[in-house]
């Protein structure tokens, strides 16, 4: 009977495993293989050993993109996590209006990325609504997308709006499943709101916070559409995150070997963070 169950499980899993192997595993392995070659898609790959990897240390485009990526991820996830946490906390206490707030907050997450990016491109236009508001306040117009200082912040600001939506819902789910007893005990002990938050809510929410940190970091590292549509990595590479550099190297310059090397670096970063996620989840189970 057990053997039959296992056979069935094998047959049922087989299509999924095959699909994953063909469309996920094979491309990753092939990218790894190509990262040891120069390959322009027009002639056969030429083996260069570790050449592409050694080149990374003097590749200013890559080093700049790595820095831009970390800057973007850091300044996106820190404010987004704080904002999402407190928004979720407020909605969890919103009573009968909670459903409406949930719907409104989640809306940005269900809109297509490209549509969102195009709308923000219009908002950030030199003659667009954001600068109109600044003008009404007596301030100078800001070149949001054409200045190397402002463009990264324009994208970060937009990501706050977009990402907060998604992570608020995750935090909200975490709040709804918190046990009530510790909070009742805190009230009986006369704990203030700040003490309850610091000593009860945050410790109980740690696994959810860890999950959101990992998800936000991985999603930040994989960002592409907003940068592609709003600035195409410019001006002067100020918003050229790794994914944009990979895309340009592969499809703009036909340097598949180099693009694969960048991809492997990105893959390694994402994998390391995913491993931390697994470790954190295991910690939670063992706690």
């Amino acid at each position: 009977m057990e053997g039959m169950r296992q056979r069935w499980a094998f047959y049922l899993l087989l299509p999924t495993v095959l699909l994953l192997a063909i469309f996920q595993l094979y491309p990753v392995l092939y990218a790894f293989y190509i990262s040891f070659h120069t390959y322009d898609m027009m002639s056969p790959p030429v083996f260069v050993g570790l050449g592409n990897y050694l080149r990374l240390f003097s590749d200013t485009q890559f080093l700049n993109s790595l820095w831009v990526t970390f800057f973007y991820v850091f300044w996106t996830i820190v404010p987004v996590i704080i904002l999402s946490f407190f928004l979720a906390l407020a909605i969890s206490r919103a009573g009968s209006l909670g459903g409406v707030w949930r719907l409104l907050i989640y809306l940005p997450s269900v809109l297509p990325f490209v549509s969102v990016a195009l709308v923000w491109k219009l908002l950030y236009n030199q003659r667009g609504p954001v600068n109109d508001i600044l003008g009404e306040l007596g301030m100078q117009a800001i070149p949001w997308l054409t200045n190397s200082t402002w463009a990264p912040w324009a994208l970060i600001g937009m990501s706050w709006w977009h990402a907060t939506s998604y992570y608020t819902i995750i935090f909200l789910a975490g709040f709804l499943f918190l046990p009530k007893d510790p909070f009742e005990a805190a009230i009986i002990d006369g704990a203030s709101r700040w003490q309850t938050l610091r000593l009860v809510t945050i410790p109980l929410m740690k696994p959810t916070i860890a999950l959101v940190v990992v998800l936000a970091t991985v999603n930040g590292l994989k960002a592409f559409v907003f940068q592609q549509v709003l600035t195409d990595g410019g001006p002067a590479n100020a918003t050229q995150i790794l994914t944009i550099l990979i895309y340009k190297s592969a499809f703009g310059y036909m340097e598949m070997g180099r693009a694969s090397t960048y991809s492997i670096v990105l893959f390694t970063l994402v994998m390391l963070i995913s491993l931390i996620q697994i470790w954190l989840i295991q910690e939670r189970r063992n706690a």
Partner: protein
Amino acid sequence: MRMGLTAAAASLAALLPLSAFAEPVTLTIWHHTYPPAEDFIKQKAAEYSKTHPDVSFKFQSDPHGDYEVKLAAAIAAGEAPDLINVLDYLYPKFVAKGILAEADYKAMGVTSLDDMKALYSPGALDGLIENGKLYGLPEELNTFALFMNKAHFAEVGIDVTDKANWPKTWDDLFALAKKVEKKDASGNLERLGFNWVWGLDGFWYAMEYWPILNQYGCKVLDDSGKATINSPECVAAFTDTWKRVVTDGIGGPDYATVNPVNALQDFSDGRQSMMMAGIWSPPLFGDDVKKNYVVAPIPEKNPNDQHTLLYNYSMTVTAASKHQDEAWAFLRFLTSDGDGYLRHTGYVTGLKDWQTSPAAKDTIGADIFAEQLTHGTYFWRSLTWGEEGKAIKDAIEQFAQGGDVKEALDAAAKQIDFVRGK
């Protein structure tokens, strides 16, 4: 009876043209998306099939950016089309990779490269020749000229239909730009006198700076292939022209509408009074601007020593094509209709004396473009042109924000040397 049938079949065969018995051939054509050109090529293909019933055609087009990616993927998969549309700066790479077929003169009804050159304006084929061999024919031989909105200038009392009022030097141009620009009550620019293109790809930037670099004696690479884009001549070229537009408050990236589909949006919509562009651009203009433009030569550093741009969006045959002779024969047939091309698509095929054709006489500024073509040179040749063009574009975007021109060009030179392995 059998003998009679055989004899009848033999007689019938003798009456039919030989081509009716040739193996049917389907030629696949790939082109970047430009509806007027697509329609024209399809029309010419249908004409060709009437006289060559054994030849049929399959046509595919994709927007410029996607087009080159799909083409590379098709070549990699061994499924290259027979006829392709290729910009001249890609020829060194494509020829080095063995992707393009050498011209088949016999199929085109000529005997040699010199015969072919004799059919075209001087220099028209130069960008398509590698190692002394021809690999394509021009479909869109281009240069840039200066477009001016005569209604805007009339508002400030300048008649730009009078050649005497055309800017001869860059100083003249910037002075005119200041005269024609319009500001609101707060002093914000409402209408630009002139601006460069901004926020587009490196090729677009190059089309505008290339003539200027030549006017200043600036070379992107020296004879050994090392970057010299940071030479004093290049620094002066960019400082006197590109940077000046920003520092003098004439234009700059903050004022430009970035639209990859219509790079000339501000001029087309009447928000800008002068721009540099090709003969193909008027179909993109708004109705008001269509009725109100004049074409002048681009300004020069030294009006007695003219330098302009030359580039070529060509048609060529791939080495993978199994029907190369038929493909070359059709290509010659297609591109020999220079008048049709200009009338239906706005493209100049560069055939000798094209500027005297009936279509050219109906085209505003055709004489100016013809004259500008004679002073044109092609971009620098390189296997890594895309990355080199991007490095220069990055430098421009850097100094346009207030950075030092020399420092920005030093960084570009370093990047160019890096990608070239120098």
